[in-house]
């Protein structure tokens, strides 16, 4: 099942027959009610009448409501009723986030090859491949940063870094939505609901000692990641309960050329382990989002004067197994 957010935050579903189309859930409740009143009522209970509500109640009640959404998709795909849908190319989609104020925790330095390459590019130091996994075995926790939800744009949106940025980078990732909540969770207990392709666009010059400093000190606003449009996800949120999110292939292409091609099986810290750490401090809830961290192949790894830095007009695509293609063009800055 694939969920989207329409421009006004209404919830949509992707139907695949007879062609890829977007079904506005709230606008089709009447058609569903004629065929299956209980399913329509079940959807209203978790999504409200307009479909713009947070997905948290839906995710929390997923085992009870899953079939209602399946009914709507089947009925619409069979064209048996008065369902109205639009061709996917005709619809402007937002980032498919559970809500406009969703919490997002992004992981940093979570792929050994990416970290080794980037440290080498910045400092010239060579680390043994095992250094970062050894740190984990030594009890060192995962790390990362908070993403401001209103910095996240959807597929098709233009990404424009702040003026003056010199080294602008992509990071292909997977955004993963928590399926449950609580405090002091154990990694083994953590359940996920959905995933989407994610691009953690990054301002890099401060890392190479050029341009103005963005932050200092032991706490930070992570502004090299938290600028307007600094994160993209989409085009949809995939709910595929048979798929193992720890084995997803992630590819990044810039103007059609493959820059990153890696698998979430290479991640040092699992999303479940990171959620467990954070839940000692914060009560997590269904719908909280985690960005996985990226694999090797970012522009920064080719060095300060490498030829992979993003330029105005570049088209960046992130493709995740079963997740469609997240596509964004870099604007002028």
């Amino acid at each position, binding site marked *: 099942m694939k969920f989207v957010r329409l421009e006004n935050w209404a919830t949509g579903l992707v139907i695949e027959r007879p062609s890829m189309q977007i079904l506005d859930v709230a606008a089709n409740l009447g058609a569903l009610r004629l065929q299956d009143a209980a399913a329509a009522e079940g959807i209203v209970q978790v999504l409200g009448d307009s479909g713009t509500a947070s997905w948290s109640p839906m995710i929390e009640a997923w085992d009870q409501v899953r079939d209602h959404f399946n009914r709507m998709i089947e009925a619409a795909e069979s064209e048996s009723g008065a369902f109205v849908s639009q061709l996917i190319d005709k619809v402007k989609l937002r980032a498919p986030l559970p809500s406009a104020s969703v919490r997002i925790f992004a992981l940093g330095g979570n792929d050994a090859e990416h970290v080794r390459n980037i440290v080498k590019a910045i400092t010239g130091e060579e680390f043994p491949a095992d250094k970062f996994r050894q740190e984990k075995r030594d009890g060192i*926790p995962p790390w990362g940063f908070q993403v401001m939800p209103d910095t996240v744009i959807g597929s098709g949106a233009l990404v424009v870094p702040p003026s003056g940025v010199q080294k602008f980078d992509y990071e292909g990732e997977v955004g993963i939505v928590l399926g449950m909540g609580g405090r002091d969770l154990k990694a083994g207990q953590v359940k996920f609901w959905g995933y989407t392709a994610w691009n953690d666009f990054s301002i890099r010059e401060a890392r190479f000692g050029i341009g103005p*400093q963005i932050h200092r000190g032991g706490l930070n606003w992570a502004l090299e990641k938290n600028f307007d449009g600094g994160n993209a996800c989409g085009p949809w949120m995939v709910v595929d309960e048979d798929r193992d999110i720890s084995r997803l292939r992630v590819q990044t292409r810039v103007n059609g050329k493959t820059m990153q091609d890696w698998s979430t099986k290479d991640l040092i810290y699992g999303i479940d382990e990171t959620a467990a750490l954070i839940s000692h401090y914060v009560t997590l809830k269904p719908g909280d989002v985690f960005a996985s961290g990226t694999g090797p192949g970012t522009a920064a790894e080719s060095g300060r004067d490498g030829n992979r830095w993003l330029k105005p007009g570049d088209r960046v695509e992130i493709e995740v197994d079963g997740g469609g293609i997240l596509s964004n063009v870099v604007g002028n800055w």
Partner: protein
Amino acid sequence: MGGQRIAGELKRDVSRASHGVDGMKFLRFDNWSTGLLVPETNKVLDLGRSLGPFRKINAAAADRISGALPEGADGSWVAMIDNWDGVRDSVSALLSALSSPNSKLVTKDLADITLQAPMVAKDSRSFLSAGNIAKHTAQGFKVILGIQQVAKDVHDDVTKPKQQGEPPWGFSVHPELIVGPDATVAPPSSVKKFDYEGEVCAVVGSRGRDIPSEKVRIWGFCALNDWSIRDPVLGIGPRISRGVLSYNLMKNFDTCTSIGPWLVVDEPFDLYNLSVKTRVNGNIRQDWNTSDMIYSFHETAAFLSHYLTMKPGDMIASGTGPGCAIESGVENGLWLRPGDQVEVEVEGAGILRNTVGAF
């Protein structure tokens, strides 16, 4: 976002703070509805329930207020702040209408109500400053780094970066973790060293990118307590952070920030000459002035606006002054314990009181 009863002791502060000024104090009732402190009294005007009766007195002003609150009185204040110049006089007229006979406006006694954190919107962003008052920062570094005495150059180290053009720094708090006056706060159970940080929270009224600091508009201010887990910086217990970015979990846990009791709006206070006092069980621990801030609210907002569109409701906290528990070393009697009552009093903004719960 819990809150409990505002204690009677606030009465003195209310009458003193509002004496002779024509501004207003916005607050959030327990159900998130909007209230206004009635000047010179201990009463709170229920804005949502007063608009109907007010419309009979001044229909145009009542319409302007309801037009500025499209989500209703229990919704966001963002549109009202965006249009503040067009709404301010109507809100003043609403407060003045209280004195007209048989106005039928709805008020409640402050002593009878519970307040929530006075946030502009439930998802308002917060940008808290770190290391922004030299004496606190130098004394904290001394303990964290194990330095025997605060040398003059440590103090210089704290203030020099700004002169060298380096940016302010700090962290954000997830809005759902912010609590209001009289809420119980507690760190996770494993924490050994729990600290207070009395601060001033300024609420941005501007919207935009690349705003010069002199153009930044601050809409209101209130007291803030930036409750802090100190174990990791003191090398106690498991590490919770490493690397160049951080989830800021020392400052991001359930109930980690309290603000309130209300936002002071449009009163003629100098944001950069406000006294900030922190008391624990009645004993003064912090007593400093916002004139000691290294980076001003305006400078921090201007810096952030290069990256992010600033918007009404964004909160910028001052950073704290000297007198936190950490500054007295790893072993001292000042660390917070369950049952402690902590008050942050900001000049003109009342007293933010919270109790430390079990941990």
